[in-house]
Structures are given as structure tokens and as C-alpha cells.
């Protein structure tokens, strides 16, 4: 019987062992996972809280990264250079003990070619008339991906990314091949308004702005910055505390997915669904009211696809943060629904105000 309080895979585990662990997750049934759920939740929360000690004023971003990682939804970090966006992703990956073979990171530019991200074309196979990419070590084979300056990429890459995020597939010689992707984080300095980027922007249900923290945490920033510098110079990685692993996140995801899919037949013949169990009617009506107000008063339009994803994310947050039904404070997640910098700034201020949380 494994200890529920420790992560099953340590940072030193080989990629083969990890592959096996991950494959095993797909075979776990709901009852088994329900037995492990509390342990999983504790470990992931320890990981979340511990990681935030290595940053100043980044708790909200780390929480959101964790929620998105469990829900397997992509997350977009928005912020000017020097607001620790890359550092957050790197330490997040280190702390989960994701090996290099399972991690892909790339800074996109207008001139980035698909082969740099998806893998080069196999020349030998091309001679035989097959169009196959050597994807090993590139985006299709990585379980965690970080794409910096994502909106600067060209249309060839954009199209491939849309398919990967949407369908979790990429095409080899015309055949769809599943990608390994579980966690996707992207970063950008600005959110451009070009129409051709609208589809990609919509794929990121949540976007969070990394604000400079020096105004509010000047002294802490200097202390933390110096610590980080020392750790870099001495090649120390204290954030690799092994509180949780990628497998924990995947198991949590499977547990929540199975839970959300459950339906229970009641003695009176009615069916109880997930929302009946985890979302009060009153709160659902409040969510509806919030979305309507944002649309009517501020023109913040939330697509139907996003509403469903939002439900999933709210449930994930509720499970992770307080372990039960969705509560009013979980609705604060709506503050990250904006599509532009202006909308993000507006929602950051308005959503807590509407909910009476500010």
C-alpha cells in the first residue's frame, strides 16, 4: 500500500518508469481514485503552497497554473518582460519532477518554422513518399509544454497549435496521432487584436496578468531575487521538494473527470447529475447572472465552449481549494475570462466587486 502522503514518482525516476506510471493512471477506476482523492488533494495543495514561497506575490498565478494543470486546460500568462513568467513555469515543472524528455519549451517568433516546434521531416521516409516528422523531443511528445510569445508565431504554427490544443492530435503522413500533452502554459507580452488570432485566444479559457510586484512588495522582491540568484549560482533547486508529481495531477484529473461524468438515479426516477451534487441552484443562477452582466454592461462575451470549460475549472478549483461543493468565492475565477488587456483589467476589478469579495 503506497503512502498517500508522498508522491509516487520522485524527481530521479527514469522516463520509462514515468511512462509506466502514467499509463497505469488510465486503468484506475473511480472507486480506487476516490480512495486516493484526499491524499492527492493534500499533496497537490502542499506543492502549490510550497512553490509560492519561492515567488513574491504570485500565489494567484500558481493556484491558477495548478487548477489548469489538473483540469488539463491551457493557461495564458500575460505580462511585460521581467514579471517572472518563464521562471514560474520552469520551477513549476521542476517541482513536479517532470523530466527533460517530457518537457518542451520554445520562444516563438514570426520566423519560427513548424519543424522547430513539431519536429523536422524525416528525409529518408520522405524519399519513400511519406511525410513524417521526427517528433521525439518536440512538442508532440512532451507532456508539459511552455510556449513563450505564442502570438508572435506564424500561421503555419498557429494552425498546428489549434489542432493540438483542441483535439490533442497532430498529423503524421496524413494520419492523426495523439500527442502526449497534458499541461500547456503559454506566455505573451501583449494580447494582439488581429482577427486571425481570435481562434487561438479562445482556446485559452483563462488568462492571467502577471503584474509587476515592486510597488507592493519591494523589500520582499529584493530578498527573493537575491535568494534566486544565489540558488542559480550554486546550482541549487530547493523548490524540488517532491510534494506532488505529474502522476498526482493526472490521477486528480481522472478522478474529477469520472466524478463529473457520474449520474445517479434517484428513487423518484429523476437523475442526479454533477451540478446537482456540487453546485447549488442559487450559485448556478448567480454564475448565469454574472456572465449576463458582463456581457450586457461591458460587452465581455463568453462563448458556449468556454462556459462548459469554466464549469470544469470551477469544479476543479472547488475540489482543490476546499474539497467540496463550489462556493461563491470560486466564482472569482471569472476574473480571468477576458480576451484583451482592457477586459482583463476590467474583470480583475469588477468580478470581485459584483461578488462582494473585494
Amino acid at each position, binding site marked *: 500500500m503506497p503512502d498517500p502522503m508522498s508522491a509516487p514518482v520522485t524527481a530521479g525516476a527514469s522516463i520509462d518508469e514515468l511512462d509506466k506510471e502514467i499509463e497505469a493512471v488510465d486503468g484506475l477506476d473511480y472507486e480506487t481514485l476516490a480512495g486516493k482523492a484526499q491524499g492527492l488533494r493534500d499533496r497537490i495543495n502542499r506543492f502549490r503552497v510550497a512553490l509560492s514561497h519561492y515567488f513574491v506575490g504570485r500565489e494567484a498565478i500558481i493556484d491558477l497554473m495548478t487548477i489548469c494543470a489538473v483540469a488539463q486546460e491551457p493557461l495564458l500568462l500575460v505580462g511585460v518582460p521581467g514579471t517572472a513568467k518563464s521562471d514560474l513555469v520552469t520551477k513549476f515543472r521542476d517541482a513536479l519532477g517532470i523530466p527533460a524528455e517530457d518537457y518542451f519549451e520554445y520562444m516563438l517568433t514570426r520566423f519560427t518554422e513548424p519543424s522547430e516546434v513539431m519536429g523536422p521531416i524525416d528525409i529518408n521516409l520522405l524519399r519513400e513518399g511519406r511525410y513524417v516528422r521526427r517528433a521525439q523531443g518536440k512538442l508532440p511528445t512532451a507532456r508539459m509544454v511552455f510556449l513563450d510569445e505564442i502570438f508572435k508565431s506564424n500561421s503555419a504554427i498557429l494552425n498546428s497549435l489549434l489542432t493540438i490544443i483542441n483535439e490533442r492530435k497532430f498529423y503524421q503522413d496524413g494520419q492523426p496521432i495523439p500527442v502526449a500533452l497534458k499541461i500547456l502554459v503559454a506566455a505573451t507580452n501583449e494580447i494582439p487584436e488581429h482577427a486571425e488570432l481570435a481562434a487561438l485566444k479562445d482556446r485559452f479559457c483563462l488568462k492571467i496578468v502577471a503584474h509587476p510586484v515592486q510597488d507592493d512588495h519591494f523589500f520582499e522582491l529584493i530578498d527573493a531575487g537575491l535568494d534566486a540568484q544565489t540558488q542559480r549560482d550554486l546550482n541549487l533547486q530547493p523548490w524540488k521538494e517532491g510534494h506532488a508529481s505529474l502522476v498526482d495531477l493526472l490521477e486528480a484529473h481522472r478522478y474529477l473527470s469520472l466524478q463529473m461524468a457520474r449520474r445517479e438515479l434517484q428513487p423518484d426516477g429523476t437523475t442526479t447529475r454533477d451540478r446537482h451534487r456540487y453546485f447549488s441552484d442559487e450559485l448556478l*443562477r448567480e454564475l448565469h447572472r454574472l456572465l449576463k452582466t458582463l456581457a*450586457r*454592461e461591458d460587452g465581455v462575451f463568453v462563448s458556449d465552449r468556454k462556459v462548459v470549460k469554466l464549469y470544469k475549472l470551477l469544479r476543479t478549483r472547488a475540489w482543490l481549494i476546499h474539497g467540496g461543493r463550489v462556493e461563491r468565492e470560486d466564482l472569482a475565477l471569472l476574473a480571468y475570462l477576458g480576451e484583451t488587456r482592457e477586459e482583463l483589467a476590467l474583470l480583475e476589478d469588477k468580478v470581485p*466587486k459584483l461578488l462582494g469579495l473585494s
Partner: protein
Amino acid sequence: MTTLVIDDSAALRAALESALIPAEVQIASVRLDRDEDGRLLLEPSVAIGRGDRRRLRDAGVELRRGKLRTGAELSCWAEALPTHAGAEPRPPLGEILFVSEGDEGFLSISGELLRLGSEDQRLAFFEDEEGRQRNLCRVPDPPYYAVLRALDPDDPLRAFAPARPGGRVWVELGHAHPLAHRVEAEAGQLILIPASAPAARGRPGETRERQAEPSSWLRVPDGPWTDLHAVSEVTLPRSTSWTATEPGARLSVELRLVRAPTQRPADLWVLRERALEQIEELVRTVPDEVVAQLRFAIVSQADPLRGGSRTMVVLRARHSAKGPPALELDAETYAPVAQIPDLHLPVATTIDPPLRPAKLRELLVREPDKLIWLAPEEGDTKTEVAGSRRRNFVRESLAEAAFAPLSDWVDYLVGADGDILEPWIRSTIFDLDAFVSIGVEWSEGEAPRRERPSREDHERRRRRTRERPQPSEPAAELAVSEAQDQAPAEAPVVELTPVELPRSEIEERLDELERSFCELEAPLDDPIRVPMWAELGNLQAALYRSREAGLCWSRALWEPAPKPGPSHLELARRWVESEAGMLGYPRGADLLGITDVLAGDLDDQMVRALAAVVVLAEQLQRANEEARARAQVDMPELDGERLAELQRFFTAHGRLLDLRTLWLARSALARMTGDDRLALFQTRDLIMSTLREGAGLSRNIPAFIRSHGGEGPAGDLDRLGEELVRVRNEFSSTRRQRSLIESTHPEEPTIAYVRLVFAWGFARLGRSETATRELDGATELLGTRVDPERGDPIHRVAYLTYRARVQQALEGLPPSAPLSTDPGGAIAAREALEGFERYKYERLVQLTRILDPRQDIDPFRNYYRDDEPFEGAALLTRPDELAALFDRQLASAEELTAEARAAALGHLFEYLEALPEPLALPLLRRGVALIGEVPLDARAKLLRNAMLLAGYYDRSELVAAVLEVIDASVGSALLEIDPAGCAELLTRSAPILRRNNFAAELSSLLARLEQQLEPLDELPAVIARLHVAAGFAALGEPSRLQPALNAAYALLPELASAPGNYQILLRELAVALSRSTAGQAIAGARSLMERLATTTDTMSTNSHFCVSVIQLMEAVVLSLASEDLALSDWARRWLEEDEHLLHRRIHRDLAAGRG
């Protein structure tokens, strides 16, 4: 009792609306039930008459005998109709009434509203028949989030909107009741109409409406209403109690000089070594125009190193549009500090720490009339802080009076002329009185006392040097010098620069002449200026600047001809020649053919040329044979028919002229046709009303006058233009909260009209390209709406009128220029509008000043008014009889009623100008004495006219008499009746009072008025305060405008619920801002723009445009698009004087040109 059987609610509604069921029955109670077929059974409580019963039967209504035993008792028949669901309401929603139950309900909704910013809640609490607590909460424009709760059928909270704005009948939000707008609630009662619930008994085939069952109406008391704060407890944080004290230590600050990030050019040079030698060298080497720009002072200062004293020179450049010259001197160079022109710092340095200018002035510029510079201390121990050198300094100063023009002490001689070489050497010996310095502070003395050569000496010397062949002769010679030197009676010929010179040379001469003209310290009507105006006109004409030339020529002819000097005949001849030259006519007489040019081909240049011909013709008619022969003018005699044709021509096209040329032409014609007094009075009124509304500076004032002085008005115009661009961008990017009614109509037409307003603004600021772009953009937005064939008539007339106004602005016409009466023009289109269409268009016109700035002004009202015409109008050419009439009226004034006395005085002041001064003055005195006895509401206007007349006559004692009456009136109830009129009276009198040395009295009156206007919480007081502030601005205190503007800004949001007052204040604000400074106007426009996001209305005009938005944006554009804002103080004073001269000449002509 009869029971009516009606098929369904649709049939019932038809019966109610068509009055098939009589009104007295409808308002009485009724019992309602349904039969087994779902039909409505209605038992009225009031008997239905036989005739009505027959009509009901004819309409198919079944009437049964007997009473209903079941069913519900309804208060009126309308209650039997169900509500129907409407579209989801969109914000802004106006006032909403929330109904909640119990304390929990009240706390929940009021708390949420307060949290979301709706503090303005009116609450009422009741207990219903069943003992439940019902809470009513009225909130204007509540947050949508709270409204959505009330729309949720599962939430107990309900919301109601008024069926009619301000009414007492409210319908549940999101629903409509077909007859709600006709229902009246009793006083002190509210009727709440809840949404109908679907009927429990639904049968297949029934319509949805038939299935809906009406809900019982709620009749609740209308109050008492309490404020939210009366039922809430606010927890305050712990308060502190601090007492004032003094700091234990004082901060010691040492001022130093440090390197400045930017560099201004030097305009002050302090020559400490070889000073006089360097000046000699400078004079020898630089062009004379540079020397003319320099002033200098010689200073003797004790030399601590060598002992004795050393001579130093301080050289200073005059302010010039081109900037100071660059001089190669071994000298310390200084530049003025920004905003403190009399304090200079070493070039490329600034003062550290950077104190605000007012503080620097207080510390360093202690004495007025002194020039101060901060000299770096010699042998200074420089300290290095963060790479910048900090240096100590010594404050040195010198009296302004110590400076003398460098050019006065220099004579230019030709080097080859050996005989005069000696005087030249002597002339560069600066025999000024020495200044003796004591210590660091330079002693101040008077200007060099060497007697300045008299003007004659100076001119003689200039002439002497001109007589010799000299290559460096100044390019332009002032015509005034020539004119003064000529024998007066013998040869009154204007010697003008030949116009065949190269363009660059003419421009150079023009520049110099303009500068001399502006710097000339002589009154505007000084005869010395007449030949200068002529030369300016001549040079402008040589450059083909027709309008500018015309403005100069008309001024050359405005004042009586100087003696000695060129005669008016001679000046008019030259004017006609230059006009003919510009238009390419071989002879001046040919210009008479312009009367035959088609109206569409006419432009202002042609009309001006013809005006010049008329002026010349009149001068010729007046001149004696000898003068006529000398003038050698080839001009045919103008016969009666020709004169009548010219009268008609100028009546139709005179509007294209500037005011002076118009008056010259019309007065000349009046004299030639035998003194047409009525036409002259009409022209006077036209000119006066144009002046009141803003005459258009570019059309009436020469450009060099407008651009002279200050920082360069082009800079201010640019600032205003840039601000207008910014405002336009802000308008495009602002998302307004549109009212429910406005949002049901497209926004493009409103945007298009706002763009037309912008086009007008850009045109007024001289940005013709941007204006044209905006005009095109608006035309495109309106699209087929303004198509002559298929378009909408309202859009067409609004568009045509706006376009015409933009085009007039592009042509520099005054804002109130008349519109074209062509068949396809704006006026024709307007006249084609009828009924509701006409109403909608006129609603727009009522709120705009651009479409029709003179909507309440008719310059000819005196001649066409409905009441009894003034009998004196027929005596305008018979001054003795007119004077006798006035005399009789004044003598009998005692017996007249107060109103009749006011009318008599009104006539007197209106037509007094028709009398010669000796006759007019005693009448004016008597009239002024009577003003105090007329009704208060007529007094302000009479006082204004009396003050203007006293000003025209230049009679200080009369001005004082009028001022006395004003003083007494301001103290009386006049202020309470008409505070704005009172303040406007003082403001309009300001120039006259200032000219007559009553500035102090005016200032004290304004201060008194200002004090009496407190508190500024009502519209009349705020408007009056704006006028008072304008009066202070006219006295040179523009800073006092800001508090008045602030009061107006503060009041504006409060008036939003009273559209009429809001519009008045918005208009007054725009006028005040357009007369303030560029900075104030920009700040004001920004403040007004803050209102844009919430500006909307629910008027019926929304079908075509949202007038509130157009009006707001017009106020913003009017604030910025004013040429007045770009004028320097000098130019403003000049304009004031210029307007006085305009009035004076008109008055003189009217008084002198009788019979």
C-alpha cells in the same frame, strides 16, 4: 345586472381601446370569471347604458342577465388584461422600483445596490394584510447585476419600471401591459402591475396570451420614502485627534546651478573682458537687422583682482518671432527661465533643486523692472553629484531702464567716404553715463542720458544716409516718413513700393513694415498709421493676398485723412488699382462689370474690388475739380440706375465682405444716393449683431495682427487643433451607455452629425484638410439617407445645413453668415419639412449654435415688429424734428407708465445716433437720468445701450453717470431678477469703462456682484458668475475664470435631469471657455468629455439623431474652435481698440451724414 361575455383578452383589449366599453365603466371595479370554454365573464359595477349595450351587441359581445357568484373582484377593467413578456431590458434602465419581502429581502437588495455604487435609494416599508413586511426601494439606473436578480423567476425579489416616465403606475420589469400607459393612479398611491402567470387550465389550440392569467394589481401607498442612510448604520473607523504644531527643525536648501537637459538660445550676453572693443567689432560685422534687435547697457564694476573698476557691457536681444540672434562673443551667455522672462540662467543650466516658477520668482526676482541673471561664482568649488556639476552662483541684476537700443548709437557709413569716416568713429564711442557697481549687486541707474536724437534728427540722418549710394540700406522704408516730409497741400501722393520687385524682397519689406507697425507706440487712430496701412495694402496686393490687402486698405480709409498726408481720394485710387491688378482688369472702371457676374461665380475678392470702386466713386464725387484732375481717375459718373443696382448688389452679397469694407461701401452708396438713412441703420444693426456673435477674426483682422505678440499664437492654435484631434479620437473610442429608446435606432447618423460638428471645428481652426476629411466621413456614414431622391427629408436638411456651415467656416465667413436660399439649398429643404418632421429638425436647431447661432436674434426686428412702429423712424433724415420728438417724449416721461417710459428710452438710445452730437448729448444725459425709473427687467438692456453711446461719444462724465445707475441697480433687486443680465451688462461695459479710467470702479462692482452671487448652487447664479469672471478677464485677471468654470462643472451633473437648464448651462460654458485661455479651454473640453459615456436621451428625435450627444460634442468643439483663444494679450487689446474705432466711425457717419 348585466354580465358581458367576451371571447378572449384580445377582444377585451379591443373593446377597451375602442371605447366600446364606456370610459366611466372602464374605471370602475369589475368582477371577472371564466366560463367552461375559457371565455371571459365580466360583471361591471356600473350600469351600462342602453345605447352602449346595443353597440356591444352589434360588435358581437354576448350580454347575459344575472350576477356572477364566483370570480375575482378587480379594481378596473384594465386589470383583466394580462401582461405580456417583452425583450430582456438593457441598461441604462432609468428609475426602477424593487419590491422585496422581510428584513432579509431589504438587507439583501439594499446591501447589494450599495456595494455596486447605488447609494441613491429611496425606501418605504409596509406591512400587508397578511402581516408580511413589504419593502419598496426606488433606485435610478440600478446596476444590471441587481436587476438580473429581479428578472430571475426563482428569486423572490421583483422589479418594476414606470409605465410612463415620472408616473405612478409601474409594470414588472421585462413585461408590458397593453393599457398601462392609460391607467392613472390616485394621488398618494402607486399601482404595481405584476407579470401575469400562465393559466393552470391550458387547453390545446389556445393561444399563449389566452393562457396567461392576469395577476392582481398591487395598490401601495406612495411613500413616505426615506433615505438609505436613515435606516443604515455606518461603522466608522477609529478617529484620531491631531493638533497643529511646528517642526522642530527647518530644512536648509542651497540653490545651485546644474546642467539642464535641454538648451534654450542665449538672449543675454554679459561681456566682462574687452567689452567695448567687442561691441565695436560686433557692430562692424553683423547685419543691421541684428543690431536693431539688440539693446545694451554699460556697467562699471569694482575689480577686486586688479583694483579700480572695469567696464562691462550687458547685451540683450529683443523678443522676436525668429528668436534671438547667435552672436560670436567672448561673453557669458544667458537664457531666460521658462515662465520667468526677467530671470536669466547661464545657457544649458538649470536651478537645482527644481523649485516651482512662483517660488523661484519670489526668491530671486524680488524687484520688478529689473533684469536678473545668475552668474556662476568665480573660483567656485564645484561639487560632483551623480555625474552632474553643481555650481554656486551670484545673483546679479540691472534695471530695465538701463538698456538702450544699440542701433540708436550707430550710424552706418560707406567705407569709401573718407570725409565722414571721422564721425563714424566717434559714433561708436559709447558716451553713456557710467554705472558704478557696489559689491556683487550691480548698481542701477537710469538709461544712458545722452540726449536721444529727435524723430526729425533721426529721420534726417536716415535720409542723409539714404541719399548716398549704399548697398546696406534697409529694405523697406516706411511710407510714413515720406508722407511726413512732403509738403502737405501740394502733393498728397502716396509713395508706395513698386510691386515689380522679386517676391522675396516684397515679403522681406512686408515683414519689416509689419514689425514696425506693431512696435509703433502710437494709438491705432494716429494719422501716422494711415500711410503705413496703405503701404501694407500695397505690399499684400503685390503678393496677391487679396483679403489681407483689403483689410489694410479699408483701415487706411477708415479714419479722417491725415493732414499733411495722402487724401482719401488718392488712397481709394490706389486701392482700386491694386484690386484691378489682382483680378487682372486693365482699368479700375472695368470692375463695375462685376455687378453682372452670376451669383455662383462671385467670390469675396470680386465683391471687395467693387466695394473699392464704390468708395472711390464717392470720393470723386466729393472732391473738387482740382483734386479730381490731379487724381487722374478714369471713372464714369454713377447714375441713379447704376447706384440702385449697386445697392441691390451689396444687399445680396455684402455678407462676403469684412465689416469695415462693408460699412465703407454701404455708407458711400448711402451718401451718393442722397443719404439712405434706413439702409445705413440696417447695415449698422447687421454689423453689431455680427460683432456680438463673433465676427470671424480671419475675415476681419489682418493676419500679422492676430499673430503678433506672445509665445506665438500659431503654437496655441496648434495646441487647440491637436486637442480637437484628441477629442475626436476619444469620441470614436468612447462607448456610450445608450438609453433603451436610443439603442433601438442606429448610431451612425448621430456619429455622422458629430463628425460634421468636428468638421466645423477643424475648419474654424484652419485645418481645412482634416475638416474636409471629417465632412467626407460624415457624408459616407449618412449614405443614402441624404440622397436627394430617396433620402430622408430630416437627414437631408440637417446634413445640408451642417455642410453649408462647414463650408462657410472653410471660407472664413462669420458663424452667423446667412445660408443660401437656392432651390436645392438648406433653407429650401427646411421649408419643405412639415409637421412632426419639422418639429424633429427644429428640436435639433434649438439645441445647437452651429446650425443657427442667431436663432433668437433678428437684426431687422426693429423694422418689422408687430407692435406700433416708432414714429421717429420716418424722421431719420430730419434731425431737428427727430430731436424735438425725443425732447417731447422725455418731457412727458413723468406721465408715462413705467413700461411706456422704458419703450421711449429704448427708442431714444436706438436712434440717438441719427442726431448730431450737440443735439444728442443733452438728450442722452436726460435719458440716462431716467433709467433708474424704468422696470427692473428692462433696465439691463437700456443701461447697456446707454453705456455704448456714452463710449462712442467719449464722454467720461456720461460714462460715470451710467455707471452710477448701474451701481445703484446692482445693489437693488435687479440682481435678484436678472443676475445673468446684470453680470453681462458689466462685462460688456468693461472695455468702455477701462478706456475711461473706471477700471477700479468696475473691479469693485464685479467683486460686489461676485460676493452677492454666493452660494453658486443655482443656474442663474452660476451663469452670472461666468459673466462676472469674463468681466474680470477683460480687466486682465483671466485666472478668476477658473472658479466660475468649476462651479459650472459642478452644477452640470445636477442639471442632467432638467434638460432645459442643462442645455442653457452647457451653452454658456462653451461660450465662456471659447473666451478663456487655451489652457482653460482644453481643460474645460476634457471635463465636458467626461460626460460623454453617460450622455443619452429618450427623446423622439432619436429616430434620426441623439440630440444630447450632438449638443455635448458641439459644446466641446465650440470651446476649442475659437480663434480668440490663440490671441496674445497684445492682440486682444488691439482688437478691443479696433472694435472701438469701428463703432466710432459708424457712429460718426450716422451722426454726420444727415440731410
